[in-house]
């Protein structure tokens, strides 16, 4: 076994008073002046750091590593207790010993994206040049930038080829970017509920969220951290609106219907009479306790800019030409944020590029969020796809 701990430049156990954004409760890899991150916006970010978690052990051949890419508001805490919320990891139903992404068999890595707020360099991190929080001075980042940073981390961990890169939503975008930018380093790819480009409708939803944040006077032109405020209401509204897009009409109806919240009759006020209102308010208010508003602006923007075809003369198939990566594309029937048609377009391009691709559409009424929920048919496919790839790659059962 490779002892990864020798590779860690820092194993930060943050005291409660320090900020997760600078000293996260996870592994951290720092990159000095000699290794800047060359961003698409033209700026070389240096120094910078990547916060990451690992589960399981890397085998001697270094052939069993799976990189998981988190979604917009996720982070590196895939399968452990979250240091801020105290809740379980965002994919702890699927990642763990004996689970479909089996940590007894695979070495699982997940890093906080560049631009995030859980320990990788982002707008909520301290700018080493000024000693102040970056805020809007942080350079704009893209999905390819996130993947470039992850590739530097993987280099540092001494891994040449990843057995699999997997993720849903914004994580799925990163998976596709990995497969397109580093085909020789990706043995298999599992892009879930995602697209090779952000649709106009999705950009529109993101813009609503951003405007809600920026309309909050407590945002203070993005300098709330310096003025001791936080745009709680704006970010909360952004989260409420976004949350609706992660669900589906049938799921909302099943969960809440038109039921009233702790009352027999409407109050004839703008109080949260309906259960669904109360639920959304809770989603909004709990989100602001764990997420930085500026980081939300940056990451939604990164998704908006994402368009793999645009980087290949508008021909998506060119992005995956002659790839040897094994793909399994997954979509969900009730997902209207990244509908099946988007996944089908990805599959079409992969096929045209000659890729070995499977495509499964999972029937569920749980909407976009289905990839984070307990959907047995989805779990079966993830397990089977990894098992089949593992057999080809010669990984021990």
């Amino acid at each position, binding site marked *: 076994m490779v002892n990864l701990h020798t590779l860690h430049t820092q194993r930060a156990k943050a005291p409660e008073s320090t900020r997760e954004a600078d000293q996260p409760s996870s592994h951290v890899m720092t990159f000095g002046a000699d290794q800047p991150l060359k961003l698409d916006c033209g700026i070389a970010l240096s120094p910078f750091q990547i916060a990451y978690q690992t589960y399981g052990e890397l085998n001697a051949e270094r052939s069993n590593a799976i990189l998981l890419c988190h979604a917009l508001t996720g982070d590196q805490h895939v399968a452990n207790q979250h240091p801020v919320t105290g809740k379980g990891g965002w994919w702890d139903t699927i990642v763990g010993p004996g689970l479909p992404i089996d940590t007894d068999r695979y070495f699982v890595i997940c890093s906080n994206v560049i631009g995030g707020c859980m320990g990788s360099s982002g707008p909520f991190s301290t700018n080493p040049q000024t000693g102040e929080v970056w805020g809007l001075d942080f350079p704009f980042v893209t999905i390819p930038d996130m993947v470039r940073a992850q590739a530097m981390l993987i280099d540092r961990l001494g891994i040449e080829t990843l057995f699999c890169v997997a993720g849903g939503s914004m994580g799925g975008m990163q998976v596709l970017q990995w497969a397109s930018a580093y085909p020789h380093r990706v043995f298999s790819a599992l892009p879930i509920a995602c697209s090779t480009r952000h649709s106009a409708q999705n950009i529109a939803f993101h813009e609503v969220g951003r405007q809600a944040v920026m309309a909050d006077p407590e945002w203070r032109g993005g300098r709330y951290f310096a003025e001791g405020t936080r745009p709680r209401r704006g970010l909360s509204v952004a989260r409420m609106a976004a949350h609706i897009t992660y669900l589906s009409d049938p799921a909302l109806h099943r969960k809440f219907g038109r039921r009233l919240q702790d009352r027999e009759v409407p109050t004839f006020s703008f109080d949260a009479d309906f259960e669904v209102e109360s639920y959304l308010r809770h989603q909004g208010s709990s989100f602001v306790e764990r997420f930085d508003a500026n980081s939300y602006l940056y990451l939604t923007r990164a998704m908006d800019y994402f368009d793999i075809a645009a980087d290949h003369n508008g021909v998506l198939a060119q992005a995956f030409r002659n790839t040897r990566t*094994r793909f*399994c*594309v997954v979509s969900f029937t009730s997902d209207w944020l990244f509908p099946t048609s988007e996944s*089908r377009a990805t*599959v*079409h391009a992969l*096929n*045209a590029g*000659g890729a*070995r*691709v*499977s*495509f*499964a*559409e*999972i*029937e569920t009424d749980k909407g976009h969020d289905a990839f984070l929920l307990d959907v047995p*048919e989805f779990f*079966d*496919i993830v397990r*089977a*796809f990894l*098992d*089949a*790839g593992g*057999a080809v790659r010669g990984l021990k059962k």
Partner: protein
Amino acid sequence: MTMTIVQGYTSAAPATDAPQTYRGDHLLVAGMVEPGSRVLDVGCGDGDLLRLLETRGVDGRGIELSREGVNRCVAKGLAVIQGDADTDLVDYPDDAFDYVILSQTLQATRQPRVVLEHMLRIGRHGIVTFPNFGHWRMRLQLLLRGQMPRTDSLPATWYDTPNIHFCTIKDFVQLCRVIDASMDRAVALNTWGTPLRLSAPWWFWNLFGEQGVFLLNRGGKGR
């Protein structure tokens, strides 16, 4: 027309096939595919044929219309996508595969001729298996009962069958001529899945073959 003897094809199966029993027509098709080639199975169902092919070192891909079928294939580790032969084959580039297989699929397509033409464009070879509507039992049911035939292998009623374009072996041979496809091998299987005598004339095949299995190539004009 060239016809090659296909008897003995089952002996090609390696010992690893043992835990699973394969259908007679699948074994016949697999015997027509060169090991190590790239194959697209259009309408691959539960993936049994693809799985058999992969045991023989074939790089197989599948298209399947039903979501349940696709998910069962992916769960078997096969590279299968959900799609429709009538609408999706147009997206595949020329010569993308060594073989394109339509195993019990052609009769369920809306435009069999177009599908066949795409098959021979995408693959250098095509393999087609289909139920022969000229089989004597079909003829007898229509003649004596005056109703659309139903058999053990085709049990669906006319109003809920996915099979909308039935043909006879004779019809299929005619279509091959129309689209300039050359028949490198032709086999008729009887009710028990075993090939009929090769020396038998076409009318005999058309009457006693329950399934037709054809290995096609592009004809002279396409070469």
